[in-house]
């Protein structure tokens, strides 16, 4: 089972700033999912990327999948306090079973 490494572990920014979080692996991802988890809640799926080089946008969130499918990034433009949460990347390794990274905790202060 490959290890998903997320960086940074923690990110604190002011409202209106931009941020990028990363998910990397030494092996090729079959596909990759990004989740956001708020305190006291379960993770919620944001996006699934499948094709190398793919870019997906979800309002102020931009997701990129590396050409070699070994890395992915999530960029948030003009962050808002509502973007605060734990951002997790995960790979589907069969049967719908997900292998998760440890996550990046993002805090956006007003």
């Amino acid at each position, binding site marked *: 089972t490959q290890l998903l490494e997320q960086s940074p572990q923690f990110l604190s920014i002011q409202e209106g700033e931009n941020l990028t979080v990363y998910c990397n692996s030494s092996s090729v991802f079959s596909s990759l999912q990004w989740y956001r988890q708020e305190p006291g809640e*379960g993770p919620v*799926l944001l996006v699934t990327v499948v094709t190398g080089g793919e870019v997906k946008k979800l309002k102020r969130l931009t997701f990129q999948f590396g050409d070699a499918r070994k890395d992915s990034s999530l960029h948030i433009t003009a962050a808002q306090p509502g973007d605060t949460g734990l951002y*997790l990347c995960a790979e589907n390794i069969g*049967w719908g079973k*997900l292998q*998760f990274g440890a996550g990046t905790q993002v805090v956006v202060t007003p």
Partner: protein
Amino acid sequence: GAGVSQSPSNKVTEKGKDVELRCDPISGHTALYWYRQSLGQGLEFLIYFQGNSAPDKSGLPSDRFSAERTGGSVSTLTIQRTQQEDSAVYLCASSLERLSGGKLFFGSGTQLSVL
């Protein structure tokens, strides 16, 4: 129901006691998963159900952990003789599809604290 429901939301128990955690998946979802999340960590897979059968139990950490699913719906995760290292948030998820790419819907979890 509208979403995945888990109960209780919080459970405090003494070391050595048994606990049962319940998951009620989204109606019609055939796949059900249990994950564990320790403080500040990502999610750790425990077990997967397709209908009432569990083709993948590889994540259960010891034989003190067991799970069952009845009627293709509700699932119960049982931890016997709890230990302090069992303290974590236990998350349940369900999915309409078991194939790759299936979207998982998570419950809010049960926060288990073993004193």
